[in-house]
């Protein structure tokens, strides 16, 4: 079992969700987050005063998946969220020890 986490541009979220549906993903956790990477935020001007705004709004999605689905899901996210511009985000995969479905008590693969 793996946890796939993606941080993407907010306006790409609907595209990514549609792409994930086509590869069979039925659920995920989504949160609005902020952060920065190499693009180092952006500049805003108020009455002539420039402010460096370090944090850029992003969307983070987290999906728990079977080992065999990792590549298809990662590829789907990357393809759907790619713009080629700075700030496109990142996708990373981490191992998971165990999963429990709260409603049924199912464990691990059965709970995904």
């Amino acid at each position: 079992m793996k946890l796939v986490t993606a941080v993407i541009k907010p306006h790409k979220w609907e595209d990514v969700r549609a792409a994930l549906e086509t590869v069979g993903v039925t659920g995920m956790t989504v949160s609005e987050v902020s952060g920065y990477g190499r693009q180092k935020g952006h500049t805003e001007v108020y009455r002539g005063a420039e402010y460096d705004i370090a944090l850029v709004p992003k969307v983070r999605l987290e999906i728990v998946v079977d080992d065999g689905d990792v590549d298809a899901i990662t590829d789907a996210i990357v393809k759907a969220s790619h713009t080629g511009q700075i700030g496109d985000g990142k996708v990373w995969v981490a191992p998971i020890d165990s999963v429990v479905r709260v409603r049924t008590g199912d464990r691990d693969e059965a709970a995904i």
Partner: protein
Amino acid sequence: MDGYYAWMLVATALVLLMTTPALALFYGGMSRSKSVLNMMMMSYISMAIVGIVYVLWGWSMSFADGFSGDGQILPDKPFDLFGLDGVTSENYIYVLFQLTFAVITAALISGAIADRVKLSSWIVFLPLWVTLSYFPLAHMVFGGGLIGGKIGAQDYAGGTAVHINAGVAGLVLALIIGKRVGFGREPMKPHNLTLTMLGAGLLWFGWYGFNVGSIVFSADSLADPDLLQAQFFSETGRTFMNTTVATMAAILAWLLIERLLHGKATTLGAASGIVAGLVAITPACGAVDITGAIAIGAIAGAVCAWAVGLKYKIGLDDSLDVVGVHLVGGIVGTLLIGLFSVSEGAAGVDGLFHGGGWGSLGDQAAGAGIAILWSGVATAVIGFAIKYTIGWRITAEEEVDGIDFAEHGETAYDLATSGSFGGGGSILGSKEGTL
């Protein structure tokens, strides 16, 4: 004249709206989310304190000699009408109209010292400042005193007594009180520009009361009902029109400067342009024609858009640009009367561009100079007196955590705990007990 009296009832209520809520919203939106309540409170407190002081001795200090033109700094017996002694209720509306001017002038200053001043110090400052700075200047300008009566500088609705006065006071206090913690180092951007846009629009609306209500009838008009009506109609039309077109021109000028200097036309620029245009046309609305009004608005919008950037170069934390908008805009409007004034206007004076020579410009400069000096000295005396007695500032830690909680025990926005899980808090000591 019935129509005039009815209009003054409306105009007075319109100017009240300018302070609460218009100015409070305009300033509140520009402040940070942790200090918006305190910022708004400074306007509301000004209403409460200055209003009562005005009734007690403000009207007396300004108008104890009537509008006779004594050419002085104060009336002969400045406290003769203390508590409106001898003023009958049929004249109350004129007292109230002037009261609203004193209130908003004092409230305007608060933008220069946002986020860092103890409420108690502001409460002590207000009655002292209107007594030493506003009431004498109101007498000098509106009461036929030194500036309006003797020098003869034109100031229809308060470019000197209101805007230069508040702008200088903001400058002096910002210098005496000092910068906010982190000024120039960390972002202090406006937290809610929708409030600022709403406030600017309401200020514009209320400003019609401020400018158009400032009509003063000539001796000839007062002696002849037909002349009175003619002056009322022609002058209110002029002031309403000039107030409108000058403000429009100022929006466009501010946005153009922004677009050229910084690449984008902003909503804060539009809101600021509105106020800059209104400030500049305030002294000039009765003196100029439509072309002059558009020119004054455009020049004020452009100059103020540039001037608000200066504070970073000189390290002055005039937090919400009281100096850049009200002092600069007030000076621009007051001086440009000397160029654009037309003899058909309220004072019957031609400016330089209409064949009147340099005399009017000299009068205007003298009026502005006296207002700057008077306000600067009076504010400095009070500012230092408070600094070395009760002190101005909350602690640095309170300031960083937010003045709203430190001074009022409140926070403006409850977003984190509005979810279904209640944010993990509990109710302490309420009648409902524990949930």
